[in-house]
């Protein structure tokens, strides 16, 4: 499906693995410029065990993905990889990878970041951030120093009180979105730079 056609953009010579059509598509479907797309592809290639044999259809396994420095130490790396893996088995093709980096980049708008943040934080994938989700989230966030049980309970209770408008003991997407749009720091924190 792909072919070694010299792309017509001003990358300054060299053959490209994307056709012009593909580059245009990627450019319009993500928040990257053409140069950045090539950069992302380079990073993708570097993660593969055999960089030379990487094609657009190559899938990287979970462990290979975990080697990416930007997510290697992130406490949520398993959720990130799971959410963005289109086949649901924690492996990503280049297009999934591009999608992931595009959502995390500086130019992605708030709405799409919130959407994906919700999915990442929803550990049991039931479309709502329930108490168990919050508990797991707090565990990840406190790292080595665990919070005591009573502190944890109090924290979860406080969050539910603040944000749960319809009293279903969990945060739905609308409630989550309602809170996140009000905080301008969300955009600066929910970012990964390539």
């Amino acid at each position, binding site marked *: 499906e792909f072919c070694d056609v010299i792309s017509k953009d001003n990358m300054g010579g060299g053959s490209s693995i994307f056709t012009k059509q593909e580059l245009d598509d990627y*450019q*319009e*479907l*993500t*928040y990257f*410029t053409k140069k950045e797309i090539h950069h992302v592809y380079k990073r993708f290639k570097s993660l593969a065990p055999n960089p030379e044999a990487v094609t657009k259809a190559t899938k990287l396994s979970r462990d290979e993905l975990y080697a990416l420095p*930007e997510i*290697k*130490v*992130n*406490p949520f790396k398993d959720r990130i990889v799971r959410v963005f893996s*289109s086949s649901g088995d924690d492996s990503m*093709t280049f*297009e999934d990878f*591009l999608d992931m980096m595009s959502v995390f980049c500086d*130019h992605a708008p708030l709405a*799409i970041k919130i*959407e994906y*943040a919700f*999915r990442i934080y929803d550990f049991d994938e*039931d*479309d*709502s951030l329930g108490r168990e989700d*919050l508990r797991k*989230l*707090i565990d990840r*966030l*406190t*790292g*080595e*120093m665990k*919070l005591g049980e009573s*502190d944890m309970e*109090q*924290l979860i209770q*406080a*969050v539910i009180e*603040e*944000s749960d*408008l*319809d*009293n*279903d003991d969990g945060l*739905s*997407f*609308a*409630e*989550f979105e309602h809170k*996140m*749009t*009000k*905080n301008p*720091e*969300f955009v*600066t*924190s*929910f*970012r*990964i*730079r390539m």
Partner: protein
Amino acid sequence: MEFNEQSNLLRNGGDRPTTSYGGRAQTVRDAEEYSYDNSSFAVDYEGLSSSDLVESSRSRSKSILGERESASDILYRLRYSFLDPDLDSEHVISETQDCLTGQDKLRFKEDILEGIREVCLPMKQKLRIRRIITTDRVNRRRDQNSKKYISSKSRKNGSGFLHLWESSITKLTAYFGSTVASYFTFLRTLFFLNLVTGIILFSFIGVPQITTGEFLLDLDDKGKTFGHFGDLSYSMLFYGIYQDAVDGFSLPLSYFLTWIAVNLLTVLYLASSMYLRYRRSKLSDTGSDFPFTWSMFCYFDFTINTKAGVKDHLKAFCTDLKEKIREEKSLEVVAWLKKLQIYFLRLVSNVIVLGLLGGSGYLIYYVAQQEPDERDVDFNENLKELAKEIYERYRLAAVVAILKLVVPSIFKLLVKMESYQPRTELKFTLARTTFFHYASLIVFITSLTKKADCIDGQEPQITSTPSSVPSNHSTNNSTSCATNQCWENIVGEEIFKLILVDLGVCIAVGILFDVLIAVFVRTRTCCCKMDYSEFVVTSNVLDLVYGQGLVWLGLYFSPLMALVAVVKLFIVFYFRYFVARFANIPPKKMFRASRSGSFYLFLLLITWILCFIPVVYILIEKTPSVDCGPFAKKDRAYKVIDFLDSLDDLPSWLSWVKDALDYIATAIVIIPVIVVLILLVLYYRVKSSSYNALIQELRRQLVFERKIERKKVFAKALSVPALGSLGKTTGSAVTGEMSRKTSAVTFTA
């Protein structure tokens, strides 16, 4: 609204438009609208397969509406397609596309294309949809669109220069996180601001002066020896050299106007960036911050990607969470004796703070009044004499800089005595330190300009030593004081000295505290448990703002001060960068008092106002010095703008312009204008507070509505006998569906 079709799923064929929220509370009580017919319910959930449900919904919605779905409907369904795994998006889209023709078709395609980027779908699916849309587009449209996208992308590419130091900042972010990086980004903004200011001033003032060929003031004819920097004093760096000696170009006019223009540009830039940032963040209603929710979801910094950085960040996070929980707990009743003690301590510390402020103000004033001993620095003399001379010259700058170092630390200690919550502590210290900085700046500048009073015929300055003070050589024999001292130059030099000393102190403190401690910790020399020093963002930002304030103060007296600031910022950047990389750790407390960049800009704006006003006052009140500088012969500096005189030459039919200007400048017009402006401000405040009240009301309504609706749904769902055996799964399916779809209702409300 597009959710009409979706929420119709759960109604029994009612094709009434759904009411939008925000107004008609009686719809809640309108039971008929929310009646869920049992029979249709059973039909919907009979097979319990979502595809059936969607099939029936799709056909139902289509038949209800009798029209095809629009682009936004399709996008909406795509967005929630994970609830609906059998949705064949391509089929739907190509079907709809085929039904449309001409302009409608084009618009449909555009809408889908624009919206598809924002939908959460896997890339493969997005690509497929895009292929469907773009296969048979009209060529003309396609070129137009691609141009639009390409041009928007290329705009981003061209900003390479504005991303100076980007790689260094990224390296720092990987360990320290976004807060520390925001300090460096702020530094970079200041760098560019000063660069632009400096270039404008240089090209309009410096270049004409260069064309006259005079770089240094000619000393011989008058024998003046003002200035502490030797040749630098008489160079283009300071006010003194600029003269009205350029042919065909009025340098005084240009000097004055460029200075005003640069200030206006600065304030325009600051105000507009603040405005843009403010707009981007939706303001939360007053007093409803969500500390816990935000801590959980927003504050974890994804940009940190080193192991040590994440560890420190999580530690700080945990401390922050614990603190917040303690805060909640500590709203307990305190014994009144203890309360009395606390209030007494607070009173004492406030008195001490005021005393410190007053004392340092007086000290600065006193030192400024001392006439410095103006001998030339002769490096052949012995060290003691040398030190004394340097002390004499740099006395004022040293005093200001040392006060700036000592007093905020005292404030930090004092505030611990007051037993506030940690975040209130931070706010108090910040406020006091800022106030101290501004006060010291203002006292500094006003006491310096007392020297200018000499010219107005007031009492002469008493010189402390009978050394080679320049005697009165000029022809001006009305006063006996040293009128030959070019007072603008002196003020400019003092400010320049202060900037240098400030830089020196910053570097010295950095080396002494951060680097030395780091060396101790690394080599484990000291046996006590020491850790690296933290990168304190607050005080560093305040330092930057203070330095910028100094530059703005000095811009009138020394046009190239901005370029000096550029060099200084360059040095500071690299110094702080290397200290941060090798000797600092991320702050243990999460500094969230700022709303990111807009807080820093706000500080900068306040500083600008506080620095602009004294200089304007000086311009209005003081006479420029008689024999140096571009305004040498004028009574007041602003008189150089004499277009009011030139207005006399206007033709008679424009004479009303002159009359109008005359009238406008009087108090009769200005006072009503001020009153009207105040009224406008009040009006907007009232409007915004009434909006806040409306928001609160809507929230209450929302919560109420959700409660009522849930109760109804549960009652209906669990009372249907046919679903009794399927019990739990039905229930969750209902609530699952409900949670997304009805929350979608609130979402679009």
